[in-house]
């Protein structure tokens, strides 16, 4: 198969970017999208078509759809046209021979471009650090089967926990909102008894960090759900909103001074 690729090239975070066009030929339909980019980079390196040689920079790692590292915006869709799939799992058979394919990085204020197609998603880590966990220190926890979780709730928690933190939801959203990402984590712990003691603090801290980092607000377009490679449902956003409201109505953490010392 032959393709024309229009790829966003940008030297570094401060430089001005632009599209560059590349022709690529004889690609097997069984080749994955990232392998097709590997072939392009090999061509740039071997044939030295343009000087200085500068392969296209893109993030990738596991190439089996789970690490969340790959992040390409293809023909107007995060992770490309195929639903429920990360770009590393998209194969060229999903395109037509002769297609022109436009490849861009995630675009969001909170995800600055590093080089070409690589972006900085450390904002996601910062949100998790605010409370996207259960503060169980190592050791001193009860036997695993002493905490019962109904299968229904365990399954729903797992649906939320399947989020790979790739940022497609943000890239898909016209407001660059991170609601689906944050909601997936809040919802996972709201559905599990282990998560309840910290529930109020968690949702408030994570939401306020999200706002602080420059993510936009949610206007219920559901683009995030449509583009999520793991099919995370917007139901989790609804659950997070309930959690948030509940916490605002009932949560008043008092500072207490002193102790038993």
């Amino acid at each position, binding site marked *: 198969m032959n393709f024309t690729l229009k790829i966003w090239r940008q030297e570094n975070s401060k430089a001005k970017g632009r599209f560059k066009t590349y022709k690529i030929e004889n690609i097997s339909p069984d080749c994955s999208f990232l392998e097709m980019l*590997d072939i392009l980079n090999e061509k740039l390196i071997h044939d030295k078509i343009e000087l200085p040689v500068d392969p296209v920079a893109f993030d990738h790692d*596991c190439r089996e759809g789970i690490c969340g590292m790959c992040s390409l915006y293809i023909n107007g869709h995060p992770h490309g046209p195929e639903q429920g799939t990360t770009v590393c799992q998209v*194969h060229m058979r999903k395109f037509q021979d002769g297609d022109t394919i436009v490849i861009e990085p995630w675009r969001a204020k909170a995800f600055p471009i590093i*080089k070409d197609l690589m972006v900085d998603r450390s904002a996601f880590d910062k949100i998790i*650090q605010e409370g996207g966990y259960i503060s169980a220190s190592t050791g001193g926890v009860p036997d*695993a089967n002493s905490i019962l979780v109904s299968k229904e709730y365990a399954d729903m928690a797992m649906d939320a926990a399947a989020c790979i933190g790739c940022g497609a939801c943000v890239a898909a959203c016209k407001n660059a909102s991170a609601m689906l990402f944050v909601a997936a984590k809040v919802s996972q712990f709201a559905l599990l008894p282990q998560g309840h003691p910290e529930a109020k603090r968690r949702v408030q801290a994570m939401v306020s960090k999200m706002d602080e980092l420059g993510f936009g607000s949610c206007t219920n377009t559901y683009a995030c759900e449509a583009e999520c490679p793991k099919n995370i449902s917007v139901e989790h956003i609804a659950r997070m909103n309930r959690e948030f409201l509940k916490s605002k109505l009932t949560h008043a953490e008092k500072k207490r001074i002193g102790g038993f010392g």
Partner: protein
Amino acid sequence: MTQLNAKIPQGSLQEKWTNYKANQKLVNPANKRKFEIIVVGTGLAGASAASALGELGFNVKVFCIQDSPRRAHSISAQGGINAAKNYPNDGDSIWRLFYDTIKGGDFRSREANVYRLAEVSNNIIDQCVAQGVPFARDYAGYLDNRSFGGAQVSRTFYARGQTGQQLLLGAYGALSKEIKRGSVKMYTRHEMLDLVIVDGIARGIITRDTITGKIERFAAHAVIIATGGYGNVYFLSTNALNCNASAIWNCYKKGAFFANPAFVQIHPTCIPVHGDYQSKLTLMSESLRNDGRIWVPKKKEDVEAIRSKKLRAVDIPENDRDYFLERRYPAFGNLVPRDVASRAAKERCDAGYGIGPTGLAVYLDFSESIRRLGRDVIESRYGNLFQMYEKIVDENPYENPMMIFPAVHYTMGGLWVDYELQSTVPGLFVAGEANFSDHGANRLGASALMQGLADGYFILPYTLQNYLADQIGVQKFETDLPEFELAEKETIEKLQRLLAIQGKYSVATLHKKLGKIMWENVGMARDEARLKQAIEAIRSLKQEFWKEVYVPGSLTGVNDELLKANRLADYLELAELIAHDALLRNESCGCHFRVEYQSEDGEALRNDEEYKYVSCWEYQGEGVEPQLHKEPLEYEFVELKSRNYKV
């Protein structure tokens, strides 16, 4: 010469870890604050170690190569994690998990280490549940289990086909909690390029920031390496593309012994290779062997008809199918350990019964389970794996059996460590797949997650204190010491040398060549002649690399090709050590199958008289043959037997 001392505690097997903990030295809370610890890697072992040590009050610096600690390759582990809970009441115990692991490793691992692993396995499950890991549950709300290879009990806990992801996100959560608290400082997109040793003790590392290209120095009282395995030496493997051996290899070159490099696990159920553009291989979880049956046609004419697409698998009647694992190993059937299953598949393909366009594949068939349990049950158990298969192969595995073939997956070998997980370099600790400690010559399924978390949550927080207790009063190190300066200078010089070659081949071209040499000669079947040939071929490829590699760009800024070239330079040296170790081990054990040493029915033939030891390699300098040290393996508590999965 360094004397190997595994420091195994006194007492019966059941008492050793208890005795160790009762007698070890501790560091009081006020002193813990004065210690700095470096952890390299944020997979299960690294993230759990960093968070647990942070909780204790140490100052921890953690490094990872990806943009977030959550991306480490532990995330890709699919099937599950073992523990000796015996929740299903099917006869499991700590002893049985210990014994299965020792036997699965073909009696080439340390009894004391493996027993401790089995002992702490139950704590891991408790910890993960407390963290909110959404393990699979039954309708009453209790935890569910499934079985894995090499065991006759169901002891594997799982979260759909994403157990590694969920455990890693649990550890990542714990790590994030400590980052927020300020006990842990995280450095993402930093690749460790060298170890710094001051007065014989590990005191720091040299890293490169993969965005800016900046080379940096970091100092600490102790260094923990948790950077995973070296399967990518083979180019094609189930590892993520950025997994690499440079951290452990540089530790080796600084004096840490490398143990059992030849022990490389080849996993039986992976999606077969389909083109030379391919960048990696994808695993299909071992858990599939719970409900999938492996077979090839009995008749050569059926094989031909399938290859030429005149017949489909479903057209082959039951009687004309050879369920070769069930035939050869009636007691364990499709759930034999990985090395056994891989070799059996290779044997059928070599004999001309392989299916698929290349003849290098066998079937993994779910039709019987779908008939018995219904498609919904199969979908709920393995849905995401079936979906992944369909995306890659473009065939529906509910209707046609999957095609699978073995691929490089995990490395049992790694840096040598004693019972405390300390290498031969004082102050240098190694955890998870990066060390050699627990799996002998073959790892059982669902045991890598167990070992990574055991090392990080429950072993290092103890043993590291025992080490640091003797360091009280040692001031924080400054990175302007001449040792740091020299290590940094050497690192930069190596990178500059790579950039200066300006040859004609890309890194990937040469890496593929190395992969081919390794897969063909140091893979599933090894023999003296081919291993010698491989060593020659690796040496000449290494020369070619240093003359003909082309690395564009410069030291500064994003430069993936430079990173890859540096990793390949290390792989080329490690590859020779793997082949060398395989050549010297004149026996077959676990994954290490030397064609010369097999029984009449093709089973691995161990030689306990001469090879019941861990081979530990000491670096002797560029171009000099490394020195072999042997750590004898004593079996005080189990009887050495030849592995039998037939009855």
